[in-house]
């Protein structure tokens, strides 16, 4: 800011304004650091408690034991049943969300009229904002009974129903982000393809989708990360039975559902049973972190390609 020396009263005013600005800046810095410090604090507690856990249970047992029974008399601390539970529900979710999400994105970006796209995009965002507890009860009270009509042997709590509904939950995320990626593929590339005598399908599948691949991959990874971290749906509809199986018809337990189970129970703080949730939480944190980081990296790469 430029100030004339002879303009003294104005200088005072400017100085006061400067103090005001400093104050505001300080407030904003505090707010920003609250977010950063909270995250750091969470990670610190997670690491601290996880370290305490691994002083009692070996990492080897944690990673290889095939049973997870920390709440029973005969304790086993193998995360595999919980990990397969998460893998199973995430896999089922993806098998729905990947094709539907990407096809929806292709339709939105390449086929539907511009006006309809403008109406559908915000609708997708709204869909992404539905509380997941609603999806959870939808799975339990609607999808599972529906599935029972076709698969009578399916249990009341099962991975299939939770996974399918979780897939529906992440469709908006995948569809909307993939649509963004497809939509910004430059018109010049489409024209180049049409000019070679390509049909619309060939242009879309042969040029536009491959050109948007890192953006689509980023959307998928974010969807996977959300599925891995999703808690409500699986806690309500998939069961709380840690079981090393890939059978989608029986009750299972995911990592997130286990954390809910212990947090809601009366397990004493500081006990090894209680510390299990930090160990599981840490594993979950690592898994979602990896997917988020890759998603971010691909999104950046995509943006750099077309800027």
């Amino acid at each position, binding site marked *: 800011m430029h100030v004339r020396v002879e303009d003294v009263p104005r200088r005072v005013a400017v100085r006061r304004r400067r103090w005001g600005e400093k104050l505001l800046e300080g407030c904003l810095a505090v707010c920003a650091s609250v977010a950063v410090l909270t995250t750091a604090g969470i990670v610190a507690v997670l690491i601290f408690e996880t370290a305490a856990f691994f002083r009692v249970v070996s990492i080897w047992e944690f990673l290889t034991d095939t049973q997870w029974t920390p709440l029973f008399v005969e304790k086993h601390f193998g995360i595999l049943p919980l990990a397969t539970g998460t893998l199973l529900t995430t896999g089922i979710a993806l098998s729905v969300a990947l094709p539907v999400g990407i096809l929806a994105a292709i339709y939105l970006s390449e086929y539907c009229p511009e006006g309809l796209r403008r109406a559908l995009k915000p609708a997708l965002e709204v869909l992404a904002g539905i509380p997941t507890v609603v999806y959870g009860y939808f799975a339990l009270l609607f999808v599972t009974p529906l599935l029972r009509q076709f698969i009578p042997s399916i249990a009341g709590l099962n991975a299939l129903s939770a996974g399918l509904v979780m897939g529906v939950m992440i469709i908006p995320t995948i569809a909307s982000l993939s649509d963004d990626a497809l939509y910004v593929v430059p018109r*010049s590339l489409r024209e180049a393809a049409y000019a070679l005598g390509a049909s619309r399908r060939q242009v879309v599948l042969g040029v536009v989708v491959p050109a948007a691949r890192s953006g689509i991959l980023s959307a998928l990874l974010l969807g996977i990360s959300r599925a891995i971290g999703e808690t409500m749906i699986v806690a309500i509809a998939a069961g709380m039975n840690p079981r090393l199986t890939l059978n989608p018809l029986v009750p299972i337990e995911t990592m997130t559902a286990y954390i809910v189970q212990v947090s809601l129970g009366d397990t004493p703080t500081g006990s090894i049973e209680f510390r299990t949730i930090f160990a599981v939480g840490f594993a979950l944190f690592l898994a979602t972190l990896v997917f988020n980081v890759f998603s971010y990296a691909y999104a950046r790469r995509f943006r750099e*390609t077309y800027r």
Partner: protein
Amino acid sequence: MNLATQGTPVGEPYVVEPSEPVAVEVQALSVWYRSFQALADVSFSIPRHRITAVIGPSGCGKSTFIRCLNRMNDLIPEFRMTGDIRLEGARIYEMDPTEVRRRVGMVFQKPNPFPKSIWENIAWGLRINGRRHDLAESVERALRRAALWDEVKDKLHMPATSLSGGQQQRLCIARVLAVEPEVLLLDEPTSSLDPIATARIEDLLIELKDRYTIVIVTHNIQQAARISDYAAFFYLGRLIEFQKTEDLFTRPRCSMTEAYITGRFG
């Protein structure tokens, strides 16, 4: 030929019918984007295996015109046209557009290689046109014709975007040549290139005219004079003059043409 100019101050266009075989005939072509008329009553014949330059100030409808020749404008919703364009006697607006575009290839102002490897850039066009056998040979032939083979033969699997601007533009030419079109349209293909890359492309076009009918849009008058056999001068959406380049540059018949080529406007 009916060349009514509908009482505009432009006057009667001067259009010479070429005394050699014709590849593309344009008859009474008018184009609108919604209600805006971009071309008015354009008629002339483009001779086979010659280079025809389309010149004129920016916004006069040069791009609009050549994009009609391969039905590229069909992709623009507000586009509407009347008149007739014939390729070797057949009406292109009654043909399948993908067939038209395969026979009439196009190179754009800015090099636009696909974000794929150099090899894939050329192989893709071949594959979608059902030419899957001896891909390797066809890719090499196209790259040789575009005078690019020696520069890229050791890095065919590198991304096309790693090439220089001039190389990318020659790759785009190779990509079009691979599908063996009859006509090659180029819309200001050298406007984003340096003089050396420009000269290479000009030399290439002169080599290519033995096999292809070439139509090149350029706002570089010297370029038109250097490489073209025929030249069409457009102004405000109208064809003003079309004849042999030599004649157009030495004895322009319309005062507008003369003003433009002597650099008094545009």
